[in-house]
């Protein structure tokens, strides 16, 4: 007698929106954008692996580029299984405000669902905004999903405006400084794992630190739970 499969479906999960937000201004031309394109593409199989091992999240990925204006490279939230990286070209100025404006529109309910995991937004930039980003940033942070999003920034090279990036992340520790190519690759790799850390936190070590570990043998680690802005106050439950 052939056994009948046990009833029911998978463990219930929530969508997790992951957004790569990439500065494509002229100063990114050459090695920087080339490294970003390659490094992010490289993270896709690992993100897929991590998603396959994460019963709590449906990982949806998108790319937002900004230079002269901003645009969604991936127009709809795309399942990691179907996500492919489109190489970005660098040219023009740094309209961060325009990008934040597009982001806000997408983090409003609808189109955002009212039941999800915190979105993860990774901003990569090497310069200073050339438009009015402040108004757009405060608009984003006034949205519940904007406020709840785990916002990570990677400052590429010495000219990146780290103050601006810290305004975006809301926390200096989430501004990672990529001083060279190798660090940039490592930080992109770390940022790509944020989706798992947010939705399926691993075993919590007793001796944990909130600062990034930079030992040569250890993967970059920032313990998201220990960061004050992501603190555990019940009043923050939304």
């Amino acid at each position, binding site marked *: *007698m052939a056994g*009948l499969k046990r009833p029911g479906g998978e463990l219930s999960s929530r969508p997790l929106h992951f957004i790569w937000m990439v500065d494509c201004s002229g100063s990114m031309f050459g090695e920087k954008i080339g490294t970003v394109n390659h490094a992010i593409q490289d993270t896709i199989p690992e993100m897929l692996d991590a998603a396959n091992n994460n*019963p709590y999240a449906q990982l949806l990925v998108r790319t937002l580029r900004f230079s002269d204006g901003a645009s969604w490279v991936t127009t709809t939230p795309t399942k990691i299984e179907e996500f492919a990286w489109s190489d970005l070209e660098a040219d023009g100025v740094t309209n961060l405000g325009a990008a934040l404006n597009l982001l806000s529109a997408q983090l409003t309910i609808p189109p955002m669902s009212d039941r999800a995991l915190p979105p993860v937004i990774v901003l990569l930039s090497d310069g200073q905004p050339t438009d009015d980003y402040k108004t757009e940033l405060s608009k984003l942070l006034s949205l519940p999903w904007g406020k*709840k999003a785990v916002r990570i920034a990677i400052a590429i090279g010495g000219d990146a405006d780290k103050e601006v990036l810290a305004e975006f992340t809301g926390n200096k520790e989430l501004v990672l400084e990529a001083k060279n190519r190798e660090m940039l690759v490592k930080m992109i790799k770390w940022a790509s794992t944020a989706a798992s850390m*947010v939705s399926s936190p691993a075993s*919590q070590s007793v001796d944990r630190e909130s600062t990034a570990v930079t030992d040569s*043998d250890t993967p970059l680690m920032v313990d998201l739970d220990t960061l004050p802005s*992501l603190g*555990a106050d019940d009043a923050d439950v939304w």
Partner: protein
Amino acid sequence: MFDSIFTEGDALVSDMGNRYEIIRKLGEGGQGTVYEVEDSNGEKHALKWYFKKFATDKQKNIVENLVRLGAPNSTFLWPEDIIYGEDNDSVFRFSVGAFGYVMPLRPPNYRGIIDLMKRRAEPSFKNLCKAAFSLTKGYERLHEMGLAYGDISFGNLFFDPNSGEVLICDNDNASYSNEEMSVYGTPRFMAPEIVIGKARASRNTDLFSLSVLLFNIFMLSHPLEGEQEVKIKCMDIPAMNRIYGHNPVFIFDPKNSTNRPVTGVHDNALIYWELYPARLRELFTKAFTIGLKEPQRRVTEKEWKTALANMAFGITPCSCGAENFYDMQAVQSGKVLTCWNSQCRKQLTTPSVFTCGKNQAVLQKGAILYSHHINNDYDIDTVVGTVVQNPNNPNLWGIRNDSKTNWTYIKADGTQIPVAPGKSAMIVKGAKLNFGLDIGTFI
């Protein structure tokens, strides 16, 4: 770079003088990198090499002690040898203090619990019960040795869907006391008192995590995720702390209906709750009502094992192919058992059941009785009896004594007949079998 400490062909010498060669990198965890290695006899093992941050003296002491103790039983992928960086300095430029440990390699037929949660592994109910029984027995062994595991969750356990056998890994956190414990546990599995910062991982918090794991395995849902979870838009750390720590409410709490499963979200919880025997529901209820607040009164491994063994050996197949659970409590209260398959819903014929003390087994063709059924020793490997057909009259069924001791068959009228090993006793309602230590009954 961190992902290339060792490369294929690198040779390492362990503390015990064994030589291992790196075959390939298997993966990277939170604390270190795992490699497949081969010893000089050509046997494969796994090597976990700690990241510098985690290669602490405390961790080293824990692992050294675990190697000394040896594996509690065969369900553990236990540390069996240590490799110290400095012993291999001539080959590698290790920093002082770097180390790793060698453990058995997980065979490929073992799958993770996440495969079960994502429905990529589909064991039968019987094997699911056996896996649950074995993993509970495994953690119990650790507790018997005075250790606490500290991190029972999806990630450190594997099972064979075709046999129900389990393997417990990541034993390098197991510690004697909560001061030594290097982990708090994994969110969603941590006991509420840890989540709210009032306690560290211990044997009693292990019991809570075990009950969450068992609930997930059987119900494909979380015991504390109901209406309260649905009302939360953003499932982040503060939200998790509320649900699993500050205000945990069992979704089937008989006295508190504020957190019931929600149709469309927690369908699995609704599908499975009534499908299992009443005893499992009682234990889950205890685990997530009393057990939420009173760490000393949590469901013990023995309570789980008794219930799980009764489930594994209480499966009544329906003609539609569905495995149904015999529910003695339901039958005794006059309830009619029906098939759970919504396409079938047939009334199940009451099977012959053997019961001895707290233990029971449904007696269908080919059913086997194990030592546990007559000795209450949780040994479900040693066969003591088999259900057989009378060769002269196929309508008559009996239990053949496969044990090494004589049994006494007590007929309903009180007549006693010896049942020597190899002989069979007829299965008749009301008849009893005296095993010496205990008396079993056919019902």
